[in-house]
């Protein structure tokens, strides 16, 4: 257990100050539920100002959307409770699905709209004429809370996103450097423990969240563009490094010496990448070295020579990518007198924004949430429980919050447990402590102790969710209003209903979603095989950027799941990525080849497509068939002796494909031409 730092205390004070400001304004305006304004502050507070602002803006929009829907729906359907329940369920499910499709902070709009409707509509069913007042009051309360939160976050020691991103990318590049060094010159740098390459992929996805929040920072737009460009190049580094490490293993198999010249080059590149003081300009010298080496590698028809030549070309790519990364990193960290941004690596479009979505699982989550809300409403109608609205509402919130998870049940369990704790805490405060306060100042002093302590836990990733639940729920359950009228029966009835709703959501999830990470992993891997089969089969439009960014995105999603399930018997995620890149390369470079070559390369691509088709049909089918290797070797023998650009590119792609699919296979032998 580590103690909160000064920074955590600062954050906690800011959040508490903003929430009390919101409470004061809401009380002064005479809004019916001032505590919603107070709770809203805690919902959006985040140590980074940009994150608070983006959440705040989207929360207002989402609340308005949900409130408008409530105003329209309730008067229409109030006399047909079953229909109303169905409509609410359908609305929540639909908006939840839309919010799952968007992985930027914008998703928050739809998430809020999804659960704001039940929040406003359900309590209004007994008095439908009040629905407009409830909706308008809730919108105003949220608005007051959010304005306080954003103003305080922006004015008092704002936490900027840019330095955080710059620190993250610097750390990421250090990790990537140690992987690169480990690949190029094994045993050169044993002091640094090579970081898991899987973590590198997962970290890129985490960075996406930060980059999307950067746009809301009180900063210039340049930073966002640099961060996006850097992110694109970072994700390009992964397949390049992964492929290089595969080729290096082949080259070093059985302790053979590297082809001449490669060794020195590797050493120099490693030195440059590892040294913290290296500048992008230094890459030019290394690229000249790569050029010189190209003239010395003989065009012999040997497997090892082909490997060496491919390696050399990929080292060139690595140098260019690394130059760009260093340059962008300098720009991001705000170093003075940096050259204006001109990309060095221009071979590929790295900024593709395509994402992989598992529509099946998303649809299931969304439909499941709507059915659970409908079922909750039916139970409530059947029991005729007066406070049932609170139960269904909190159940809906719980299902929406965690819908994006593979296995929401543990999270909903946490939600339930901490809801109970919040009820206990607010009961103690409401009936033992707050009666002692006679004015607002006294009330603030009494609230300060618990809220400041809980607030320090919000910035800590381990406690973030628990602290969030505690602060928001306690603020809500306290139900601070203009006059003190705590009534024990009403308090317990209303709040136990909330706990019952969370419990219902938990049971519902346990029953309907017994599967989780395993299924998601399985579907991700299968989706990548399908993509590969289509790409190699030439069925997809040859949109390089879209396909490659989708494959990278899938890798990023797959990695944390592989780590969680600890089962990589299917795939390590990287092999598919490398095969995909090679297939795309071959299709690109087909254009400049003769008919004979194209025919043999088509045979290779057909073989790759067939292999992955077979894997989809039977996932235990692991090894690529020998016939495919024979086809690759045939195609290689055609292009290996030529020096034109297209043949060279095709050879490199074939070599990489062979290394990815047949690691450790006996080397390629030129078939003697009779």
């Amino acid at each position, binding site marked *: 257990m580590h103690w909160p730092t000064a920074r955590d205390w600062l954050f906690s004070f800011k959040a508490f100050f903003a929430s009390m400001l919101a409470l004061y304004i809401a009380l002064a305006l005479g809004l019916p539920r001032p505590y919603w304004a107070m709770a809203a502050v805690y919902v959006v507070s985040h140590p980074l*100002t940009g994150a608070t602002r983006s959440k705040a803006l989207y929360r207002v929009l989402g609340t308005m959307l949900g409130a408008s829907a409530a105003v329209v729906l309730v008067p229409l359907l109030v006399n047909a409770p079953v229909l109303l329940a169905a409509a609410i369920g359908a609305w929540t499910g639909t908006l939840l699905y839309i919010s799952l499709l968007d992985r930027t902070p914008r998703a928050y709009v739809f998430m809020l709209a999804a659960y704001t409707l039940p929040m406003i509509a359900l309590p209004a069913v007994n008095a439908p004429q009040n629905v407009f007042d409830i909706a308008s009051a809730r919108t105003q309360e949220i608005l007051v809370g959010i304005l306080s939160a954003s*103003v305080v976050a*922006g*004015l008092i020691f*704002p936490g900027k996103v840019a330095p955080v991103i710059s620190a993250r990318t610097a750390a990421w590049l250090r990790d990537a450097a140690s992987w690169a060094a480990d690949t190029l010159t094994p045993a050169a740098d044993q002091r640094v423990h090579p970081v898991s390459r899987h973590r590198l992929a997962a970290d890129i996805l985490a960075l996406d969240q930060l980059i999307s929040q950067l746009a809301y920072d*009180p900063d*210039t737009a340049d930073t966002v563009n640099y961060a996006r460009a850097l992110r694109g190049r970072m994700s390009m580094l992964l397949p390049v490094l992964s492929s290089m490490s595969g080729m290096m293993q082949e080259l070093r198999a059985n302790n053979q010496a590297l082809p001449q010249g490669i060794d020195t080059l590797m050493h120099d590149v490693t030195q440059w990448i590892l040294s913290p003081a290296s500048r992008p300009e230094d890459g030019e010298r290394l690229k000249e070295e790569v050029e010189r080496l190209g003239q010395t590698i003989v065009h012999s028809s040997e497997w090892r020579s082909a490997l060496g030549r491919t390696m050399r070309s990929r080292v060139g790519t690595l140098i260019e990518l690394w130059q760009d990364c260093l340059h962008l990193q300098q720009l991001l960290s705000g170093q003075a007198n940096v050259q204006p941004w001109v990309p060095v690596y221009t071979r590929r479009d790295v900024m593709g924004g395509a994402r992989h979505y598992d529509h099946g699982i998303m649809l299931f989550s969304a439909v499941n949430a709507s059915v659970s809300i409908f079922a909750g409403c039916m139970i409530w109608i059947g029991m005729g429980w007066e406070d049932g609205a609170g139960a269904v509402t909190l159940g809906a919130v719980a299902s929406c919050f965690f819908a994006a998870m593979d296995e929401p049940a543990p999270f909903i369990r946490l939600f339930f447990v901490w809801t109970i704790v919040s009820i206990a805490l607010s009961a103690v405060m409401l009936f033992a402590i707050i009666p002692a306060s006679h004015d607002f100042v006294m009330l603030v002093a009494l609230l300060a102790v618990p809220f400041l302590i809980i607030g320090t836990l919000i910035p800590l990733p381990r406690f973030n969710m628990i602290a969030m639940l505690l602060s928001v729920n306690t603020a809500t359950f306290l139900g601070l209003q203009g006059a003190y009228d705590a009534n024990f029966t009403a308090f317990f009835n209303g709040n136990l209903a909330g706990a019952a709703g969370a419990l219902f959501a938990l049971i519902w999830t346990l029953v309907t979603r017994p599967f989780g990470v395993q299924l998601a992993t399985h579907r991700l891997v299968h989706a990548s095989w399908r993509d590969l089969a289509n790409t190699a089969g030439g069925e997809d439009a040859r949109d390089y950027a879209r396909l490659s960014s989708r494959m990278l995105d899938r890798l990023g999603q797959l990695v944390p799941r592989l780590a969680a399930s600890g089962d990589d018997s299917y795939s390590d995620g990287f092999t598919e990525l490398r095969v995909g890149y090679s297939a795309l390369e071959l299709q690109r470079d087909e254009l400049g080849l003769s008919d004979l070559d194209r025919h043999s390369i088509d045979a290779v691509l057909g073989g790759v497509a067939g292999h992955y088709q077979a894997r989809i049909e039977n996932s235990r089918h692991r090894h690529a068939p020998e016939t495919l290797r024979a086809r690759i070797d045939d195609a290689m023998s055609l292009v290996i002796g030529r020096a034109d650009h297209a043949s060279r590119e095709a050879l490199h792609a074939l070599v990489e494909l062979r290394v990815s699919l047949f690691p450790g296979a006996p080397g390629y032998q030129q078939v003697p031409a009779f």
Partner: protein
Amino acid sequence: MSGEIDIYGVYIPSLLAWMVIAFFVTGGLRFVLARIGFYKLVWHRSLFNLALYVLVLGATVSLIHWLKP
């Protein structure tokens, strides 16, 4: 100068309307200031924006009163 504005039977406080107008005016001003690089001279951007907003709001209210005394 009544304190409320009637929009199809929904009464909203007129101050709210002025605040919304001032918000959009400030947004335009901020865009222009950012384009001409004025913010490089500002020490605390958020504080400056808040002050600017209050000034614009005051100007809006004064202007309305001057037009409709």
